[in-house]
C-alpha cells in the first residue's frame, strides 16, 4: 500500500535542474538513452559533451530537436519529436536497437518512474489509476532499457501530485524491472541505491535530510558527505 504523507510540503528544484544534475553525473564517452518526460530534458545540458545519445526507434548520435526547415518526418525520436543528426550518426532497425540495449551496450538509461523501491525495483509502465487489467499498458521500451542498460538513473518528482510517496519500501504498482535502479534524481534529492539501502547524497537548497526523509517511505542512510544538489 502507498502510505500517504502530507500534501506536497517542499519546494524543490525545477525539472530542468533535475535534468542538469543527471547530465553532471554522466561520464564522458558514454552511450546514453533518455526516456520520455524529465529524462528528455537532459539533452538540453549536454551540448559539446562527449556523449552519444541513442533513440530506441533506431538512431545513434541523435542531435537536438529539429526546427523549421530541418524538420524531416522520417527523423523522429520515440516521442515523435523531429530531431537532427550529429556527425557520426547512424540509423538501424528497432530490432537492432533493442539488440544493443539488451546486449549491454547502453552505458546509461535515464527513465521516468511512478515508484522506485529501496531495492532498486522500478515501476513505471502501468498506472493502476487507468483501470486496465494488470497486464495491459504502455510497456514500450522501458523494460528492455531497465534490464539492459549498465546504469539506470531514475528522474522524477519526489512525490506524486497528491503527495504520495514515490520512493517506497516495496512497489505497489506493476514493476518494470527488479533491482535495476542505481541512482534516483528528484526535485528534492539525489539518492544512490546501494546493497545496504538508499543513501541520501544531496538535498535541494534549503532542505534538510529530515525534510527528505519525511517524504520518503524507506529509511534513508545519510551520506557523511551530504551536500546541496550539485548543479
Amino acid at each position: 500500500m502507498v502510505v500517504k504523507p502530507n500534501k506536497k510540503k517542499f519546494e524543490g528544484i525545477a525539472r530542468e535542474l533535475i535534468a542538469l544534475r543527471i547530465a553532471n553525473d554522466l561520464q564522458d564517452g558514454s552511450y546514453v538513452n533518455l526516456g520520455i518526460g524529465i529524462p528528455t530534458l537532459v539533452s538540453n545540458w549536454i551540448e559539446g559533451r562527449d556523449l552519444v545519445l541513442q533513440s530506441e526507434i533506431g538512431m545513434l548520435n541523435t542531435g537536438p530537436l529539429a526546427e523549421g526547415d530541418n524538420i524531416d518526418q522520417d527523423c523522429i525520436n520515440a516521442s515523435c519529436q523531429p530531431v537532427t543528426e550529429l556527425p557520426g550518426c547512424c540509423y538501424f532497425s528497432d530490432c537492432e536497437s533493442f539488440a544493443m540495449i539488451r546486449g549491454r551496450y547502453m552505458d546509461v538509461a535515464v527513465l521516468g518512474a511512478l515508484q522506485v523501491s529501496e531495492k532498486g525495483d522500478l515501476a513505471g509502465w502501468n498506472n493502476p489509476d487507468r483501470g486496465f487489467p494488470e497486464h495491459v499498458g504502455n510497456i514500450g521500451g522501458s523494460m528492455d532499457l531497465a534490464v539492459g542498460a549498465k546504469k539506470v538513473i531514475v528522474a522524477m518528482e519526489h512525490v506524486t501530485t497528491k503527495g504520495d510517496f514515490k520512493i517506497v519500501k516495496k512497489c505497489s504498482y506493476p514493476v518494470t524491472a527488479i533491482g535495476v535502479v542505481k541512482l534516483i534524481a528528484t526535485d528534492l534529492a539525489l539518492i544512490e541505491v546501494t546493497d545496504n539501502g538508499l543513501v541520501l547524497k544531496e538535498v535541494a537548497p534549503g532542505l534538510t535530510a529530515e525534510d527528505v526523509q519525511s517524504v520518503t517511505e524507506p529509511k534513508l542512510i545519510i551520506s557523511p558527505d551530504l551536500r546541496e544538489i550539485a548543479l
Partner: protein
Amino acid sequence: MDKVFASIDEAVKDIPDGASIAIGGFFTAGTPVELIQALARHGAKNLTIICQQMGPGNEDVTKLVEQGQVKKAICNYPFYRSASRGANSPFEIAVRAGKIEVEVYPMGTFIEKMRAAGAGIAGFYTPTGVGTVVERGKEKKVFNGRTYLLEVALRPDYAFIHAWKGDRFGNCMYRKTAQNYNPEMGKAATITIAQVEKVVEAGELDPDKVHMPGIYVQRVVEVGRRTYKPGID
C-alpha cells in the same frame, strides 16, 4: 521476377477474415498508411493487428477499429499516455468494453519475436520482463546465474511495410528512422506487402545498401510520398 502490383487495392484483396497483419511504422516515420487505408476499404474482419500503437498517432488503424474489423491487438504501446485523451479513443473504449483482446510485449521482445519467426528460430531466452507481469505463463531458465524468459516466434500472415525505394525483386531501402519495425515485420510475415515511395529499376539500388533483401517481400506497390508533420504524442 516482378513483384510490382499496379494498384494498392489489388495488393490487399486476398486478405481473408481472421488474418493476422503486422503493420510497420512509428508515428510519421515509415507507417504504411496507404495499405492500412486499403485494408479499411477491403473490409476484412476479425483481424489480429500487430503494431506499435493502436491509437496514438495512427488514425488509420483507428478507422479499422471503428469499422469493427479488429478482433485482437498485439502491441507494445497501445494507449495514449494521457488518460483523458485515452478515454475518448475508440481503441481504448473497445478494449474496456471487452470487444478487442490485447496482448502487450516489451518493445524489444515484440520485435525480436518477429525477428525469430523470420529467422526460423522457434523461441529465445530474454532477460526482459523477468519479475514482471510479462513473465506470467512463460517458462523461465537460468543461464550463468541470470534468469531469462522463453518467448516464442510470432509469424504474421501478412506484413504491411513502408520503404523509401524498392525494385521489382522486392529489394527495399529505408530512410532514417522510417526503418523502425518495417524490416523484421517484413521478414516474419508469410506475405509481405511493401508500399514504396518510388519503384526503381533492378540494379539501381546499390547492392551494398539494400536494407531489405527482396526474398522477404512478395508484393511491391508504389505510393509516392505524402507529407506528415511530426509532433509530440
